């Protein structure tokens, strides 16, 4: 087990390192730079060159990379070229919107996906099961933007129950308003993620129903539902957990789009405007943080999977 964790840890570090190089050098290919954006349409070429020099953009690109990685090792993401504020501070502030949004979406997704997935598996031969499965198929194909617009027009504009955009100025100092402003965005992501999760749960549960141990449990007198819930569910949960790594990457991609739609001041929206400004230290920091979150979740899922599944534990020790 320890060897397993060490290998995974080494892979994680290697993954982060490769990601840092990919992020840094891909961004250097983008046309245009921050000096031009700061200068705008009124600056002379001499002024732009002066801005470029003062920001250190004329330095060797490999030196710049070495500086950045050196900073990363000390948990220092550098300063924004546009505002001069530390990138890490900015990201931490935006994560206070994006992380709760992702968590809330995950909760919505799990609440929808797992129970309905199990129900549709148990009733797979009945009309109600088929309806659930088909709706999930359809829902999973809905673009987040469209779902968001529908939710906005229903709950925001027609019923006026919830705010359609924005986040309270004082952030989490106004917890009621903060949560209210996250409900529609979280539903937008959560419902779609839930539909994906539902299909996952359904096929895992269907497989479990066909297994000997569930049939045996049914044979000794449990109802089929009971048998599945008692003996099949742990196995279903295993495949759900292993799909969570991908699901969370999906949640984060969803957050980028949905933050734009609902004008939430989160990491995704900041990323879009940073790319527009060519504020590369911030873009690097944003993407690296997102990559690190996805890789860390993957790492945690691997370990959790290993710990929960007794079959894998035995394989290692033998």
């Amino acid at each position, binding site marked *: 087990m320890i060897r397993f964790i060490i290998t995974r840890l080494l892979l994680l570090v290697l993954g982060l390192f490769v990601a840092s190089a990919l992020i840094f050098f891909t961004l250097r290919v*983008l*046309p*245009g*730079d921050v000096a*031009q*954006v*700061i*200068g*705008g*349409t*009124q600056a*002379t*070429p*001499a*002024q*732009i060159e*002066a*801005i470029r020099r*003062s920001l250190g953009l004329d330095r060797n690109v490999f030196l710049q990379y070495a500086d950045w990685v050196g900073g990363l090792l000390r948990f220092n993401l550098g300063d924004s070229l*546009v*505002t*001069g*504020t530390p990138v890490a501070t*900015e990201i931490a502030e935006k994560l206070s919107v994006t992380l709760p949004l992702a968590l809330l979406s995950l909760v919505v997704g799990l*609440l929808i996906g797992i129970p309905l997935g199990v129900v549709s598996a148990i009733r797979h031969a009945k009309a109600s099961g088929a309806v659930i499965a088909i709706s999930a198929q359809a829902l999973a194909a809905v673009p987040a933007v469209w779902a968001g*617009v529908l939710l*906005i027009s229903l709950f*925001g*504009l027609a019923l*006026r*129950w919830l*705010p*359609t*955009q*924005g*986040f309270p*100025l004082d952030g989490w100092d*106004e*917890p*009621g*308003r903060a*949560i*209210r402003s996250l*409900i529609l965005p979280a539903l937008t992501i959560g419902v779609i993620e839930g539909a994906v999760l539902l299909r996952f749960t359904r096929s895992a549960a269907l497989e479990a129903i066909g297994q000997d141990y569930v049939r045996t449990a049914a044979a*000794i007198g449990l109802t089929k539902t009971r048998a599945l*819930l*008692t*003996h099949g569910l742990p196995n279903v949960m295993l495949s759900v957990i292993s799909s969570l790594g991908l699901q969370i990457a999906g949640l984060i991609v969803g957050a980028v789009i949905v933050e*734009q*739609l*609902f*004008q939430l*001041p989160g990491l995704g*929206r*900041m990323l879009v*405007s940073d790319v*527009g*400004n*060519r*504020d590369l230290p911030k873009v690097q920091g944003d993407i690296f943080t997102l990559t690190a979150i996805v890789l860390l979740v993957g790492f945690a899922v691997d370990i959790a999977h290993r710990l929960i599944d007794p079959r894998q534990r035995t394989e290692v020790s033998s």
Partner: protein
Amino acid sequence: MALRLGKQSHLGKKTTGRRVLVAASIAVTAALVMTGCTGGGDNAGTLPTVNVGLILEPTNLDIRTTPGIAIDQVLIDNVYQGLVGRTPTNDIVDVIAKSHSVSDDGLTYTFPLNSGISFGDGTKLTADDVVWSIDQVRTNEAYAGNADLADVASVKKDGDDTIVITLSKPNSNLLWALSGRAGLVLEKAATNTLKTTANGTGPYKLSSWKQGDSLTLVRNPDYWGDKAKVGKIVFRYITDPSAQANALVNGDTVVQTQFDATLTKQLESDPDLVVHRGKTTDKYTLAFNNAVAPFTDLRVRQAIRQAIDVKAILKTIGGAGVAQGGPIPQIDPGYQNLDSVDAYDPENAKKLLAAAGQTNLNLTLTIPNVYGTTVADVLVSQLAAVGITLKVDSVEFATWLNDVYTNHDFQLSYVDHAESHDFGNWANPEYYFGYNNPTVQALYAESLAATDPAVVTAKLEEAAKIVANDAPAEWLYTATTLTVIKKGVTGFPTDSTTARLNLAKLSVKS
């Protein structure tokens, strides 16, 4: 087996527990939904808070080194003030200066100062602050407005309450320049970071800036003039037009500037929202790269202008603009109606192209993606009608700055030139237009050197006419800007709101 059954009952309990938990969390959420209703009124005493929707957010707040109107819009007049300022229709007014006078030779400008002025941080304003501020811009090439002060020979104080600016040669644009970045007065002794904070003499103080979201001003209780009637102004940056409409209908904002004219129907459900139309100097310019073929041929440039039906374009943008036949918009000096020059005439356009030997022309239009493609689509079909195939290349603004503005690597470009008094771009052969006409350059120089305003206007008119006849671009339209204001909100300007928003007189009827 017994063990397993035991586990089962345990699981049963757990499920009930979970159910209670889920029910509880739903109840809590519901309670929050019910109770957490509507904000507003915050803590700035009994004075109201006004939420204003804007589109373009500043990249940073450095009024000295970061050009761009997004900073001017929120900070000039409200937080920073200059010796002189400008009205929404671009007339010059005194602000920190009590009055101003110009000597007959046009070389000496005298500004007696108002008394009792202090900065937002409480420090009294002195004549030294004014001299220092203008000298900073004058001597530092990286400062916005530096080029506007090229003719200034000295800035001095005469006693403690008068400023005298001496020029090396007359410059009719000086007062205009001083009403912009070049004339703003900052505190010499202040040490605040300009990129994220601001300290000026205006009726409001900058309270906070949440990047990517909002910027908040609070009333300056010690303002030297008439104090503000609202406690707090929150500028919310909302780029998506539908989200702007939703915010208005929902009451999240009570004012929205630069509203999309094609979406006014969405506001009809709220009879208290009034749409105001205002003038701007936003010149939506389809520029040709005059330095390269085929645009070196006058006939090709004229043909493109004549192939374009401006009326049809105005229709697609919901009527939010007026035709602009030449380089100068209506509210700038030197404007004259030049709509008849190269007016819409597709048949003649075809003849011109045939005469130029360009019957099968393939052109590329580079357009920043912030403008959408509605207008570009119309251009494609209008140019197709005269035999020109137009490819639209929609790029990020940063890419446009790099390829078109800096490297002049383009054929046709479409952007909004929002600045007022920017005719000088047509007299600058280095500008991305690549337009080089020595007569125009000489006339512009003469207009700057003139001391009589009538001569200034006459020279600009003459130059503008030559530019229009040279067809270096098609001026598609000057934008009419839509400001949506909720009834009860008064004192919000509706002209030139894309450049300035003087909110000193803003008030709300409760």
